[in-house]
């Protein structure tokens, strides 16, 4: 399964902005077997980066222990309507994807 689209929502909270992002990714652990007994190759997101108006605020390294089609919530200090949030990921095969949202 190839990586699919991402979805993101950035909503103003009390003093912070809640950023919720969904990534379509199989997150294969390298331990799962197909019905014919073959191991499914390790394939997972390794890095997730959150940027606000072009400035990096969260940098993360993750493992195959994150669930399939990962969903993350992050909190950005303050935030104003129209601020641009960008989330990007990179997996162990060099595939990458990113999405943008403006605070609504």
């Amino acid at each position: 399964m190839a990586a699919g689209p991402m979805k993101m929502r950035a909503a103003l909270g009390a003093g912070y902005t809640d950023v919720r992002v969904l990534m379509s990714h199989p997150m294969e652990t390298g331990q799962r077997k197909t019905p014919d007994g073959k191991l499914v190759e390790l394939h997972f997101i390794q890095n997730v980066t959150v940027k606000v108006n072009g400035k990096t605020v969260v940098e993360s390294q993750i493992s195959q222990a994150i669930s399939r089609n990962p969903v993350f919530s992050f909190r950005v200090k303050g935030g104003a309507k129209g601020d641009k949030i960008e989330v990007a990921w990179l997996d162990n095969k060099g595939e990458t994807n990113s999405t943008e949202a403006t605070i609504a």
Partner: protein
Amino acid sequence: MHNRRRNLLQTAGIVAAALAAGLLKPIAALAATWNKEAFSAKNPGDALKSLGAASAEASSAIVIEAPHIAENGAVVPVEITSNIAGTTSIAVLIDKNPFPLAGKFDFMEGALPFVKLNLKMSESSDVRAVVMAGGRNYVATKEIKVTIGGCGG
């Protein structure tokens, strides 16, 4: 003289190799760091050592919100908040997973030390949140019971 020549040759070799790698995999140049040693560790102690957090002080200022019993080990929602001033990073470890380290989140100016994520758990286990703040390490632990494991299939 010989030494200098050798250095020059070595440097040229390294540059050539880097170029070749760059041409084959342009994405590699963009790759952020990924602590392979910590993520390959098979027990939480080794993983923490690789992260430079071999010793950590227990802290009630780290809040782990997660179910006591997770029916499905493939998706265990966990929310971690650090109320420790100057928190720069949060690492999440699942003690009994084959590779305990699940993630490490570095927070820069502009982000709150908070993360919510879904974990895969192979069996019931302690989940640890290790917070790095001001050059010191703090830890909080929560036990999560899993009815159906989320690793095999």
